[in-house]
Every structure is written in C-alpha cells, then in structure tokens.
C-alpha cells in the first residue's frame, strides 16, 4: 500500500524532485450556507487536515497517520450585482495547542456559459500566529464547473470542477508563491446540497528553496440551509 501511494505521488508531481518534500493526506470539509435578506449570505466551513505520509522524494519518508489541524471559517458575502459578490470573513485554526487567526476579504465574479460556469475569486487575507510575523496573502482563483448531463448542473447529476489558484505570500519581508490545482468530481443531491471528491495539489516554497508538494484528497460537503 505504501509503495502504491509513493508511486502515485511520483506520477502526479511531474517536477524535478531532488530535495523536494511532500505531504500526502486528506482534507475533508463541511460547508454550510444560509441566504439572508437584502442579498446577504453567510457561509460556515469546517475543514481538517490529516496526514498519511510525508518526507522527501529521494530521502526519508514517514508513513504514520497524523492529525494536523482543524480550521473554522465564517464568511459573510453580499451580492453587489447578479453575478458579483463581495465578502468579509474570519478564520481560526487549531494546530495542536497553537491557535491561528486570519481575516479574509474576497471579491467573486461568476459567469454562465452553455455547459459550464466560471468563477473568478480575488482574495486577500492576513494571518496572525503567536510568536510569528504576520502573513499577508493576495490570491486569485479560477474555478470551472462542467455539467456532465445537459447544459447546467441539476439535482441528481454529476459534474466536474477544476480550480487553479495562485497565492502570493509575504511574511517578515520574505516572498513566496503557492500554486494550487484542484480537479474534483461532484454530485448535486439537490440545488443546495453537493458532495465532491478530488485532489487538492499544492506547490510552494519553490521561489527561494526546494519545492514542497502537498497532495490532499479533498472531500467536500456543501449544504445550503
């Protein structure tokens, strides 16, 4: 089993390995949202990160299960046009005994085309960890939803979702770039309930050092209440 997981990691990374490090695990999340009057909406998300294997590609690897962290996030969004929204949010992370706080600002533009929908998300966040310099990020993500039956995703239908995100990060004068690629298969139970399974691939630390590859199996549940 461990050999198979290692083989998948090698196949998926596609970059020069050398001293590259990797992490593999699971990233399950539950998203609950509620529409409010006057075009407001609130979203609450719980996400955990659980590691199955980590190490370097040509060096040491450890394969013990490790529960890394839990995130709680609340975002309040307002429609500023039919397909555009602005949002503010707060995020708290529990990593062992460490508690991390983050403030979030987002602007989202959604577009509909026959057979697919595109979402552009522009975001900024500020992360505050005790005894560490704050982290400031500017992010852009494009997400594409492709209906697998008909021209739109209807209840009891599958869909594909591809996301690509770029996160520019500054901490204490140091810059880093993180790139994420997320291919997912989703199923819509009804207009407000969806379940998705896929890969959340993250590449960072390559700007000024050996790259870090992280492969998370994403399992996302969405429910509009």
């Amino acid at each position: 089993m461990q050999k198979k997981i290692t083989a998948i990691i090698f196949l998926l990374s596609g970059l020069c390995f050398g001293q590259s490090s990797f992490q593999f695990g699971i990233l399950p999340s539950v998203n609950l949202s509620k529409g409010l009057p006057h075009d407001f909406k609130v979203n609450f998300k719980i996400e955990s990160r659980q590691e199955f294997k980590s190490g370097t590609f040509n060096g040491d690897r450890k394969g013990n299960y490790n529960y890394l962290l839990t995130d709680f996030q609340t975002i309040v969004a307002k429609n500023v046009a039919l397909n555009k929204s602005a949002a503010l949010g707060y995020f708290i992370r529990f990593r062992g005994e460490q508690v991390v706080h983050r403030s979030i600002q987002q602007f989202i533009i959604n577009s509909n085309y026959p057979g697919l929908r595109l979402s552009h998300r522009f975001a900024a966040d500020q992360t505050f960890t005790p005894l560490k310099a704050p982290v400031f990020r500017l992010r852009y993500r494009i997400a594409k939803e492709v209906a697998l039956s008909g021209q739109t995703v209807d209840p009891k239908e599958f869909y594909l979702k591809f996301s690509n995100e770029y996160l520019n990060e500054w901490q204490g004068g140091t810059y880093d770039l993180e790139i994420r690629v997320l291919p997912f298969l989703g199923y819509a139970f009804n207009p407000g309930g969806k379940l998705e399974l896929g890969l959340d691939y993250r590449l960072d630390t390559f700007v000024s050092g050996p790259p870090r590859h992280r492969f998370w199996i994403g399992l996302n549940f969405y429910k509009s209440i």
Partner: protein
Amino acid sequence: MSFKPNSLNLLLLLAILLAPICCRAQVKVEREYRISPEQVPQEAVQFVRAIGFSRRIKWYKEETERSTTVEAKSRKEGQKYSIEFNLNGKLEDVEVSMHWRDLDDAVQAYITKTLDAIFKKHRLIKIQKQFVGAPEQLLQFLQNPDQYAPPTTNYELVIAGKEKRSFKKYEFLFNAQGVLIKKTEIVVKNTDHLDN
C-alpha cells in the same frame, strides 16, 4: 486549546451518510439532461431533420413540476435554434437567438419603458425570437424565411435586474409590438461550491 480530531471526522461521516436524506429537500426540482435521438418521438425528429441544420443536433429532456418536454438545439447560419416538443412529439415553439440591435426601434423603446418601470437597474443577458404556430407553417418559414411570412412572433428576454433590494434573474415574454405577456423569475443556481 485543541480540537478533538475524531469529532470532525465523525461530523463529516455523518454529513456524507445523511446527505441523501437531509438533501431530499423541499425545493422545486428542475432537470435538463441530454438524451439520444432514439429517445425522442419520431414526429419531433422528422420535423427537426426537415429544417436542414448544418450542425449537429443535440436533444435534451427538460423536467419541471408542471411538465416534461424534449428540446432540440442546433445552429443554422450562425444563429442558435431551440425547438421544443411535448412528449408526444407535438411542436410547442421555436426559439432563435438574436441581437437587441435587430429589434425595431419602436419595440425596443416599448420594452425598455416596461423594464425601467419594473427595475431600478437592469441588464440584458439574452434575447430570442419565439415563433409559435402550426407545425407546417413554421416548417415552411424556417426552411425559407425569405419567402414566407413569419408566424406569430414573440420576444423572450432574460434580464438581470435589481428590484427593491435584491438582484434577480427573470425571463420576460413580449409580443411582436413589445407588449409584456409574461414575467417569470429564474432561480439562480447555487454557487457555494464555486465561491468557497
């Protein structure tokens, strides 16, 4: 302060297991899905074939609370066509995409006045000509639009508008003179999985 990991895994497992039950929601179910020509009534297939589309014809079934219809979509001379039939193959209407600028000035003015009276702000998303009539008459017109008079023509517009304090999407049906026949709200698809 720490968070017990097993609690989240249990919550997620419960959410996944209960999703088919708790997501059997009390909302209107509308579905549109692709079907093969073999699943379409012969009368409908023959009508669409007779129009003479150069591009591939795609067939869909549309299910709503009120009815189920089959629809053919294709293109001819750069215009998108959508032809709707009931489950017995009886023609309901033909819709053809068009541009706002191709409408008569007088009709444009009348429609704009109607929309300005309803919305604080509005934006046109899509406009189509809708032809309604006897199948033989419609087929003659679609095969030779320059030679035959158009049957009953309506205009179907999809509008994004701000009414009171909310942005919503509507489908409007106007007659050939620009008089409003029907206004229907379109339920905007949930985007939680794209936004978050």
